[in-house]
């Protein structure tokens, strides 16, 4: 078979290089659509590659393609090689498919920004790195993509590097894009350090980093519960908590909303943040050998899902609600992985990529026409003005909340069913509670943004928190309208998948779990033993949880809008705990960031500035002082030098002659 897998990451890379070199000189439309074209081409190649994969018998579904050797030291070798199996097939379809739609949307979203070439360069570069991450056949190559997506995330969060405060029409203070980007980079760096250590330990243990070597060796060499595998998997999982925003490293993702909304949709909802989930699923052989790690993964996942969902209940910024929702849904995926339901986790990853990208792009559409206003307290009444955005956003919200027959319902139900039968009933109960809260907060968002009466006025000038904002769009008065076709067409396509992508993984009692069967050769999962009655009960419980959440949201924000304020005054402590995000940012600020800054200052000013610099300067000063005295010997009188020479010669001769 001809080798063409490398084309999948290479196409976006070519797009990035073209836009980097000449993009700013090209017309805006050409530069933007060029980026879209390369993404679409990558999607086309991905589809054909996956079709080729399908042609193989299920147990042989691996396409392995080596480009060239990257590092070769003795018997250790790392290749630029691609590995397409059902797991990476699912990932590349999501990355290129959703990525293409988001690129199309971004053409409309960035229509007023003068820096379009830089934006599309970085978007295409991100796609390249992400595809390297999911297609790599070894951990080092994967790490290259892993760091590359982190870099692109940093660059794109700080895309509006010259603005200080993006909050528009609100008194809330958020980090500037620059600081947000730095925060994201530094926090994920902590996780990446764990990942590096894990990979080093893997090399030390197995002498190889290629998937095809490591996994069989691990199964042959180690019993279940071997300490070295447990440590290795825990270190790798630390990397996943950074990249996929899990407790305790989730704090960067909400601030990442400072980036343009297509970035939030592509990087911080659909693809990059799922890299941790993919990595754990890819390493499932190792994780299955470490029950302790699995328990940690499951508990961290549920804990993250719970914490993020509770914070999302009280956020006023629609994008931040979605950010916390993303953290929470990623928590679900890790819960699934932690109980050994890898296929369920990947299933939720796929459906989540569709509906969360849709929700972000809907929120972005609102921002686009409301002069960047996104504070839900000042929105409202947009249902009639932007009907397409409203209906697609509603579909996304139904999918996220797990409304029956929408995609999120099937994937979340599969996670909860697996969690119930393989995990513990406590984790399952928390998961159901989180499902209820999810339905509540997303419908709070829907009602506050689109429902009710407008809380803004036509022609109103929204004050921007930042005078540096040079957005000519923002200077005009409010005049919301439906977004252009380039933005709503991707919304409609994603809405379609948000409804129907659930049908690739039907629960046992309803039909065939097609995705589970497709992934079976990778994971070799033992199907759960569960009676039909119990399965129906679990489906009913999660459906009822979603309906209750939606009902409460309607009650609180539609029929009786006084309830939230009353609740807030009844439980001021609880409200401020949630509104301040459990003070986690402040705790990190005082326990880690400040001591770290203090230590850095101490090293900079005292150790380097005083001791090392002082030593170097002191040495210089000592020699200069000595020279100050020595130079006086040079009197400038030629006859003086002659006399000195003469005396010197006489003395030397005298010593030579007198020597015994």
């Amino acid at each position, binding site marked *: 078979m001809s080798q063409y897998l490398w084309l999948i990451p290479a196409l976006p890379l070519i797009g990035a290089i073209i836009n980097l070199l000449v993009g700013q000189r090209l017309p805006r439309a050409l530069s933007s659509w060029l980026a879209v074209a390369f993404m679409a081409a990558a999607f086309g190649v991905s589809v054909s590659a996956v079709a080729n994969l399908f042609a193989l018998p299920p147990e042989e579904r691996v396409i392995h393609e080596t480009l060239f050797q990257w590092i070769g030291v003795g018997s250790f070798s790392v290749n630029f090689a691609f590995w397409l199996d059902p797991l990476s097939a699912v990932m590349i379809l999501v990355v290129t498919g959703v990525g293409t739609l988001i690129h199309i949307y971004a053409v409309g979203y960035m229509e007023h920004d003068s820096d379009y070439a830089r934006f599309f360069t970085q978007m295409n570069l991100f796609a390249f790195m992400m595809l390297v991450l999911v297609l790599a056949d070894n951990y080092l190559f994967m790490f290259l993509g892993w760091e590359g997506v982190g870099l692109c995330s940093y660059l794109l969060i700080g895309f509006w590097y010259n603005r200080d405060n993006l909050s528009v029409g609100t008194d809330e203070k958020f980090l500037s894009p620059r600081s947000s980007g730095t925060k994201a980079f530094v926090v994920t760096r902590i996780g990446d350090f764990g990942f590096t250590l894990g990979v080093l330990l893997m090399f030390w243990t197995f002498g190889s980093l290629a998937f095809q070597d490591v996994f069989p060796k691990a199964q042959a060499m180690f019993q279940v519960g071997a300490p070295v595998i447990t440590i290795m998997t825990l270190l790798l999982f630390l990397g996943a908590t950074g990249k996929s925003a899990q407790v305790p490293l989730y704090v960067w993702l909400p601030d990442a909303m400072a980036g343009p909304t297509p970035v939030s949709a592509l990087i911080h909802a659909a693809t990059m943040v799922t890299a941790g989930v993919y990595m754990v699923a890819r390493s499932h052989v190792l994780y299955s050998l470490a029950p302790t790690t699995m328990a940690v993964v499951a508990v961290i996942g549920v804990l993250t899902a719970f914490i993020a969902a509770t914070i999302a209940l009280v956020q006023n910024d629609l994008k931040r609600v979605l950010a916390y929702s993303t953290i929470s849904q990623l928590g679900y995926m890790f819960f699934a992985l932690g109980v050994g339901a890898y296929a369920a986790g990947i299933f939720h990853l796929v459906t989540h990529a569709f509906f969360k990208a849709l929700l972000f792009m809907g929120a972005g559409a609102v921002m686009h026409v409301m002069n960047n206003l996104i504070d839900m307290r000042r929105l409202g009444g947009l249902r009639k003005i932007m009907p397409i955005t409203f209906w697609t956003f509603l579909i996304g919200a139904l999918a996220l909340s797990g409304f029956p027959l929408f995609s999120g319902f099937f994937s979340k139900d599969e996670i909860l069913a697996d969690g119930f039968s393989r995990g513990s009933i406590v984790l399952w109960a928390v998961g159901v509670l989180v499902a209820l809260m999810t339905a509540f907060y997303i419908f709070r968002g829907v009602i506050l943004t689109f429902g009710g009466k407008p809380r803004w006025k036509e022609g109103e000038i929204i004050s921007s928190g930042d005078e540096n904002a040079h957005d000519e769009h923002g200077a005009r008065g409010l005049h919301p309208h439906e977004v252009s076709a380039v933005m709503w067409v991707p919304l409609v396509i994603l809405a379609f998948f948000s409804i129907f992508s659930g049908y690739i993984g039907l629960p046992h009692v309803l039909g065939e779990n097609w995705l589970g069967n497709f992934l079976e050769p990778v994971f070799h999962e033992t199907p759960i033993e569960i009676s039909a009655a119990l399965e129906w009960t679990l489906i009913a419980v999660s459906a009822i949880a979603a309906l209750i959440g939606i009902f409460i949201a309607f009650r609180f924000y539609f029929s009786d809008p006084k309830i939230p304020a009353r609740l807030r005054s009844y439980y001021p402590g609880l409200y401020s705990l949630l509104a301040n995000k459990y003070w986690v940012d402040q705790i990190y600020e005082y326990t880690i960031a400040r001591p770290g800054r203090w230590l850095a200052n101490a090293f900079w000013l005292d150790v380097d500035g005083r001791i090392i610099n002082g030593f170097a300067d002191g040495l210089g000063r000592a020699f200069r002082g000595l020279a100050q005295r020595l130079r006086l010997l*040079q*009197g*400038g*009188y030629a*006859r003086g030098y002659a006399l000195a020479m*003469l005396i010197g010669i006489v003395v030397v001769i005298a010593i030579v002659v007198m020597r015994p």
Partner: protein
Amino acid sequence: MLTVTHYTILSAILFAIGALTFLIRRNPLIMFMGIELMLNAVNLAFVAFARFLNNMEGQVFVFIVLTVAAAEVAVGLALVVAIFRARDNVDVDEIDALKG
């Protein structure tokens, strides 16, 4: 009978006069004469020892010294001319631009 000692003593005296000339006088032309005197004092010693020891190598050295002396005077006189053109003055004690 003249022995090598006489030549050596004469050479030493000539060398001392040359050295003193160099140290005492401030006119660079006279100082060059002092230098020439010292060089020729050495040449005298070379010739005397060559004759005394029946070894012609000493006389070869004299030719080398003469050549070097000629070159040295050429460079030195050029310097003196250059300095005179620049400063209208060739008093060695006044030329102290490299004073530390």
